[in-house]
């Protein structure tokens, strides 16, 4: 497992300039969670309604460098299960682009 020093060198996938309160712990948590990804990987992030959601993707701005989806309050996991299913199906049908086929 990489140590903190190594993790801090990984790509930042969540940019500043969002509207979370100064000093809020959530953006830092997001940043560190996203370090679980390898730098060449792409993620789809499903976000429930809440501070993190309304403050980080306020039309026409977004803080998310990966694909990100918000639908409602109670169903971030259900939404993501559909996205995952679509990924599997498109892969099976060989309809994914090279760059995102893993």
């Amino acid at each position, binding site marked *: 497992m990489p140590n903190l020093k190594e993790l801090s060198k990984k790509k930042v996938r969540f940019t500043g300039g969002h509207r979370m309160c100064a000093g809020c712990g959530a953006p830092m948590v997001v940043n560190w969670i996203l370090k679980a990804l390898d730098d060449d990987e*792409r993620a*789809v992030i*499903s976000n429930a309604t809440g501070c993190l*959601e*309304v*403050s980080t*993707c*306020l*039309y*026409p701005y*977004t803080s*998310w*460098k*990966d*694909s*990100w*989806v*918000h*639908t*409602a309050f*109670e*169903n971030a996991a*259900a*939404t*993501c*299960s*559909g*996205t*995952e*299913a*679509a*990924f*599997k*199906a*498109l892969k*099976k*049908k060989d*309809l*994914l*682009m090279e760059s*995102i086929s893993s």
Partner: protein
Amino acid sequence: MAKRVSLSGNEAVAFGMKQINPDVVAAFPITPSTEVPQYFSQFVANGEVDTEFVAVESEHSAMSACIGAAAAGGRVMTATASAGLALMWEMLYVGASMRLPMVLAVTNRALSGPINIHNDHSDTMGARDSGWIQLYGESAQEAYDNLIQAIRIGEHKDVQLPVMVCYDGFITSHAVENLEMLDDEEVKKFVGVKREAPFALIGQDPVSMGPLDLPNHYFEHKRLQAEAMKNAKKVILEIAAEYEKLTGRKYGFFEEYKMEDAEAAIVVINSTAGTAKFVVDNLRAQGKKVGLIKIRVFRPFPAEELAEALKNVKAVAVMDKADSFSAAGGPLFAEVRSAMYGRADGKIVTNYIYGLGGRDVTTTQIEKVYADLFNAIETGKYEVYNYLGVRE
């Protein structure tokens, strides 16, 4: 080559879905729609489709998963009825406003309460302003044909909206009828292999979907959504013309039955049109000038075209298989009468709420509606709001 088959409405829809071979189906069973996901999950288990089937814990999750899959760029289908549709409610609006094409087969069933498993239109009529295109069909054939066309309508670049394909619970969903199905290859060619998705979570570039949209942008987005629904009118006719070339079966916004010289007409949705056509034929044989309009497309509502079709009648009865409890008539009535205002003025326009909770509608009752209309034409006296076949 097309083949003749005998199938129930639900089977026709499930086989249609198999031919479409969507990327994702996320569904939860509910009577009388259950067979659709049941048959389809068998196709998945048997490897007859490439679809990923997501077995969810509720209809809310079913629609959420469909939205997640459509946002990813997949071609998505599901099915439900009644309370299942009601549980999807919140997500119906979200899916439409995200401009995600999806196809939802609804077997129309009365909405609780009291709980009732039989057919009326209270479920989809309640969802009429959710931003979904709504197609209705009288028979298994029409449910099948609408389903195939729905894929193309919703995915059209000028539309990008979800589509409900509605047919009557039990009456159409469970009765076995003869119909004509296209070949698998013909369907494949008609719908294409991959959905056009201008923006997708799994696409060329990362994208954020479902942002917070405050007063300086929200209104413009809703306006664009309204424009897409307007565009759908043209697209629905284009797709219908293409489908007619393939099948010989003609579809429009509504079907006009013996309307050329009709003095008294009824406007009706779904399977009751079959019963009503029988009555029209009988009354025509007696020399009575009667006709019928059966609505196929309720959203977008073909207001101008309907007014044009009704401009020569003297009296029209609008039949609602759902009450809106507005104390001013059912939903179809409100829209038809409003469509006629300023375009087909001076007509007698009445409303009949009928068949709630699956109450049978008989030929005698429909004869009575026409008799009421002729009586109204003669005497000028009539009730605007009526309930048909209820014990008062």
